[in-house]
């Protein structure tokens, strides 16, 4: 039996109270059951340690995971100055947590460390489902995923979202039990008998001629079609390179990311540009290997909402009739930018498509992780701009 509840607080006057209020609200909805684990996401406006202390006060015995976000989502609201908590109590699912540090130093290794930590904490068993919460600003997101895959298996069910910091793009935080960390990846392994569904879709479409990556170094995209990578955006935006470097590029271009074709998906896999330098090299959120064909992607509000709905439907179907118990949403911050004042529409669409009574909690991420199109049994990738959903049921 699994029960879940979501709480939200916007108490900017007292950060500790904010954490306490959000957690208490969530725990109350468990109807007297003690929570096994709390997923907590908080705006960077709050003192992270204070919030965590408040949350711990409300749930002295539960596991706590989560981190800072670029927006907090529940089934009834989308806010940008809140603390939201998903409390889960279950006697059929066991939650085991773990952490890997030093993402910027060696992202792959940090990934393996997190996965190994979960496995060892569970008593040596691989989990039925692995949720990852990596730092959103440091290291190479795709490498972290690879690191986890190297421990759990190439096709292991992995899903998650990168933590954010209210669009400052400076520093993000991860919560593991009572610690506020940074440059880390937190992992949660789910063990036991339960059903789950993935919904992963973005709705962006390619535009313009295909381009070839002629020179790349890790996450740095150096040359496209023999010319400096930044030229792509210069041409498509009609703007000077200097301006694009200054802006920074991320802010202008995160609704116009680059997409690459991957086997097994009708949608292109999206990569966000983060920042450009004077040489015209673009640092991407995740590496695009040399020789890859890329296209510029263009987003459309209505198409994005349709994609979100589709993702929700797929996730629901994957439950194969099981009753959904809770939803975790990893929604890319770029989608918030694209949809503007309509951002809550896609969140509501998801909630309604799965069941408006199902407790839903999530946050706006700086990157998402999961298998292409949410197909179970296929390798997990690092995504951008994508609506990524995990529905757990029984």
């Amino acid at each position, binding site marked *: 039996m699994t029960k879940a509840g979501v709480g939200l607080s916007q108490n900017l006057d007292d950060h500790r109270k904010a954490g306490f209020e959000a957690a208490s609200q969530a725990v109350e909805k468990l109807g007297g059951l003690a929570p096994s684990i709390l997923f907590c996401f908080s705006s960077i406006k709050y003192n992270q340690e204070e919030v965590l202390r408040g949350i711990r006060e409300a749930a002295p015995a539960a596991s706590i995971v989560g981190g800072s976000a670029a927006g907090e989502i529940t089934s009834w609201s989308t806010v940008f100055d809140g603390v939201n908590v998903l409390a889960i109590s279950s006697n059929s699912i066991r939650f085991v947590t773990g952490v890997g540090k030093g993402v910027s130093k060696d992202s792959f290794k940090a990934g393996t460390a997190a996965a190994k930590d979960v496995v060892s904490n569970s008593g040596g068993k691989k989990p039925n489902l692995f949720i990852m919460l990596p730092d959103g600003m440091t290291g190479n997101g795709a490498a972290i995923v690879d690191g986890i895959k190297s421990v759990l298996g190439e096709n292991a069910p992995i899903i998650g979202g990168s933590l954010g910091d209210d669009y400052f793009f400076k520093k993000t935080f991860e919560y593991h039990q009572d610690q506020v960390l940074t440059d880390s990846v937190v992992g949660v392994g789910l063990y036991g008998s339960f059903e789950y569904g993935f919904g992963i879709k973005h709705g962006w479409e390619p535009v313009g001629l295909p381009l070839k990556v002629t020179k790349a170094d890790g996450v740095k995209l150096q040359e496209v079609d023999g010319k400096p990578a930044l030229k792509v955006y210069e041409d498509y935006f009609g703007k000077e390179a200097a301006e694009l470097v200054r802006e920074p590029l991320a802010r202008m271009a995160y609704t116009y990311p680059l997409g690459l074709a991957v086997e097994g998906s009708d949608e292109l896999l999206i990569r966000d540009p983060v920042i450009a330098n004077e040489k015209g090299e673009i640092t991407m959120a995740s590496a695009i290997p040399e020789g890859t064909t890329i296209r510029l992607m*263009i987003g459309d509000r209505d198409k994005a909402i349709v994609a979100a709905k589709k993702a929700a439907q797929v996730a629901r179907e994957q439950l194969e009739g099981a009753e959904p118990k809770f939803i975790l949403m990893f929604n890319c911050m770029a989608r918030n930018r694209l949809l503007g004042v309509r951002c809550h529409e896609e969140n509501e669409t998801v909630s309604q498509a799965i069941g408006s009574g199902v407790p839903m909690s999530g946050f706006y991420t700086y990157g998402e992780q999961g298998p292409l199109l949410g197909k179970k049994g296929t390798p997990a990738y690092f995504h951008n701009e994508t609506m990524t959903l995990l529905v757990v049921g029984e």
Partner: protein
Amino acid sequence: MNKVQRTASPLAKRNAGVKEIKRLRNTLRVRDLELAELKKKHAIDLQELDKVAKMLVQRDLERSQITEKREDELKQLKESRAALLNILEDAQAARKFVQEEKEKISAIIANLSDGLLLFDAQDRLSMVNPQTEKIFAVKEQDLIGKTIPQLAAFPATRPVVILVKNEGEKIFRKEIKLREKMTLEVTTVPLTIGKNQLWTLVVLHDVTREKLIEEMKTEFVSLSAHQLRTPLSAIKWTLRLLLDGELGNITQEQRGFLEKTYQSNERMIALINDLLNVTRIEEGRYLSRRVLIELEQILQIVVNSYKEESKRTNIGFKLEVSKEPLPKVLVDLEKIQVAMQNLLDNAFRYTRAGGQVTVSLKSDKKEVELSVKDSGVGIPKDQQEKVFSKFFRAANAVRIEAEGSGLGLFIAKNIVESHGGRIWFESEEGKGSTFYFTLPVAG
């Protein structure tokens, strides 16, 4: 002619083949050219598409930037609107509060049982309340805006206005009889309104009833005193007869009792007289005809009458008169004597045997000054304030002599001040007192 069908020679076959190859080559060449053309066209089309795509992206970027800006502005507008609404709410609440306060104050002023007049910084009448209208039997609109001189022209308001004009800022409960059944206590209060503007608030307190009661009280005392005098005179006359032996011999013992009774009766008569004097002072009927004399003359008479007393009580008695001739004063003879007697009575009463009483008389160009100095018990500092009050007797005085009306100094003060003089004292408990009064020089 029929040509015989023969098989083509190898050479002919070869020539045909070569022709075919040439034909095919041409076709291929043409096709190649066509393909190249198509490819070129295709490339141009793609370039066109790409150009369009780039334009599309640029337009889209502009649009999304504008949309973002617009949504930001809308958000700001919403916030400004909310803030403005808050301010408006606050302003409305404040205005409502001010209005309520105003109404409260207006209600208080309108219903105040005292009359209020408010003069602005230019001494123009700014406001009167309904009670003022009642007091003067004038309507507000006839008074507002008028200056003090203008108001003085109204017979109804004249007395009050004159008082305010002459004594201005610091009037405290000054009594004015406006007309037969209207006595007012007038008080002025300076107010600072706005930026250092000095306004004047005049408060009219109706004391007609109080005055009436006081008058009734005085009348009553007067009547009672007169009524009491008659039987006391009869008693005095009868006792005198008895003591003078006109009704037969009396024993020594009987004489003793009769003397005591006579003295008690005398004291009662004195008290009644004092009460009557007080009522006459209060009714303003006290002073009679004044004559021009030298004060020394009266003083001598009074002093002589105390020589016996001095011997009897063994208290030294001295008179010091200034060597230079004293100017004349205009006085009510009888009353001035009473004043001097009251001072000397006190001096002797409150000085022990062996003490000293000194009377001095001097003058300057403006006034004549008399002083009575004793070496008696003095007046305690905490009682000195009330010494001239009606019926007041200091605690130590009461201890020395239980009986006494407490009216002596009240009457003396009245007499002296009615003549335009001043009266005061210096005293130290245990050492003695000196009482002074002055009278203005006549002329």
